């Protein structure tokens, strides 16, 4: 099977149906059509029965309106269904090839710092200010992660590339403030990824490891507790399904067509997702050449901690 053909097919299908919207009144049309059909059937039955019984006791009216169950009764089933589709979308075999492209905004006052095998986020939110601080862009596939950190005003701070090898992590960092770069090998953690075993708020989002662990992290969070589909909200021009945790700080918005996450808010962080096909152009985003004129320095000694 051609992966490229499948990707083209998906992209074409997405484009071809992009502007499709439920026409207003479709439900009413369906209801009226169905109701008319039902009444006609009942009338025919009643006339036939009346002819046999010669009694006018049959009633053809009194239709209940079609719905025996209020839609509210479907809510829990709908939520369970949506959650199962999200979990399935994240577990799809093709996800191992997809490049997760994310943009994460940190609260003002948080400072990002690259360390071997990950990223440190230090400091605390500046008072009760809702202002956004630094942000990072991240591209990740199964074996490689590249993240670029910026100030709130868009000034590039550093790029960090982590590659998983056999039992080790290779980290390379280009620091744009000091015009330096460093590279180091470290032992691969026993459990790499985004703290997939932890449930928020206790666990926090742990930015360690070098693999595209967002799907694992989100799946683990969904398995942690009760969630509710809280309607729709426009995210990136799409009427995304909003999924909120009954207890805890996690809110997830998923694409109603693909069920893949579009946005996640947790612990004061907001992350927007795009799931990119592994085209040459997208794979090139994982590359990170050191700019000319930058000089190499020794790597810092500390390891990754919570982000």
């Amino acid at each position, binding site marked *: 099977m051609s992966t490229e053909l499948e990707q083209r097919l998906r992209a074409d*299908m997405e*484009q071809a149906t992009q502007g499709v*919207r439920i026409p207003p009144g479709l439900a009413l*049309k369906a209801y009226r059509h169905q109701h008319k059909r039902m009444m006609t059937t009942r009338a025919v039955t009643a006339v036939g029965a009346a002819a046999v019984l010669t009694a006018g006791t049959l009633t053809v009216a009194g239709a209940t309106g079609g719905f*025996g169950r209020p839609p509210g009764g479907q809510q829990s*089933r709908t939520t369970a*269904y949506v959650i199962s589709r999200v979990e399935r979308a994240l577990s799809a075999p093709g996800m191992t090839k997809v490049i997760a492209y994310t943009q994460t905004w940190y609260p003002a006052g948080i400072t990002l710092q690259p360390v071997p095998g990950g990223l440190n986020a230090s400091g605390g939110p500046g008072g009760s200010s809702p202002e956004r601080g630094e942000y990072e862009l991240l591209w990740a596939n199964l074996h490689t992660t590249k993240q670029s950190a910026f100030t709130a005003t868009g000034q590039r701070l550093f790029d960090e590339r982590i590659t998983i090898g056999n039992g080790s992590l290779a980290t390379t960092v280009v620091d744009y403030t000091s015009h330096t770069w460093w590279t180091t090998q470290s032992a691969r953690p026993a459990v790499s990824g985004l703290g997939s075993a932890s449930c928020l708020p206790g666990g926090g989002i742990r930015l360690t490891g070098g693999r595209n662990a967002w799907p694992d992290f989100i799946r683990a969070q969904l398995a942690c507790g009760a969630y509710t589909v809280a309607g729709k909200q426009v995210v990136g021009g799409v009427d995304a399904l909003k999924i909120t945790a009954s207890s805890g700080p996690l809110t997830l918005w998923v694409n109603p067509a693909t069920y893949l996450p579009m946005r996640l808010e947790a612990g004061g962080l907001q992350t927007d997702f795009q799931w990119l096909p592994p085209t040459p152009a997208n794979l090139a985003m994982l590359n990170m050449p050191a700019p000319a004129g930058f000089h190499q320095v020794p790597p810092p000694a500390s390891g990754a901690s919570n982000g």
Partner: protein
Amino acid sequence: MGADRAAADLEQFLAERGEPLLRAAVLLAGSTEAGEDLLQAALERLLRHWRTIEGDPEGYLRRTLYHLAADNWRQQRAWRKRLRLLQPGAGAAVVDGTAEVDLRDSLVRLLMQLPPRQRAVIVARYWEQLSEAEAAQVLGCSVGTVKSAASRGLRRLRELSESRGPAERAAQGSARERRS
């Protein structure tokens, strides 16, 4: 429960869950208009069996969509055969762009040339991203049938995609010759 309330409930269901179903219906039926008709027909069946549906109604609606689509395609295929008899000049290789004007993308247009079962499998597997087992459940067939239909469908799409370029160039060339 009155008609207005019932319709409003259904509107709410559609507002929350309708769009992906309509998009699948459009891909199954071949045009936006046909997709809306298909979804409406499936909704009518949903209303008919609303009280007896176990589990999520979306699943029922999805299965109905696929089954109805197969029926419609069979009818359309019969009509196409009759039309072809009336229009001997219309070559089979020429893509009919009239009914699918809103499906401009090449592979989606080629998808409309696949047999109904293959098209349904392709939409289920590669648009809805259902697993083979789930697609088999939706389509009411075996996993083996899904596998073989998906394989044949993709192969056919690849063939059509590869042959489309030269055929279109030839058609454009002959059109230019006729004009000059």
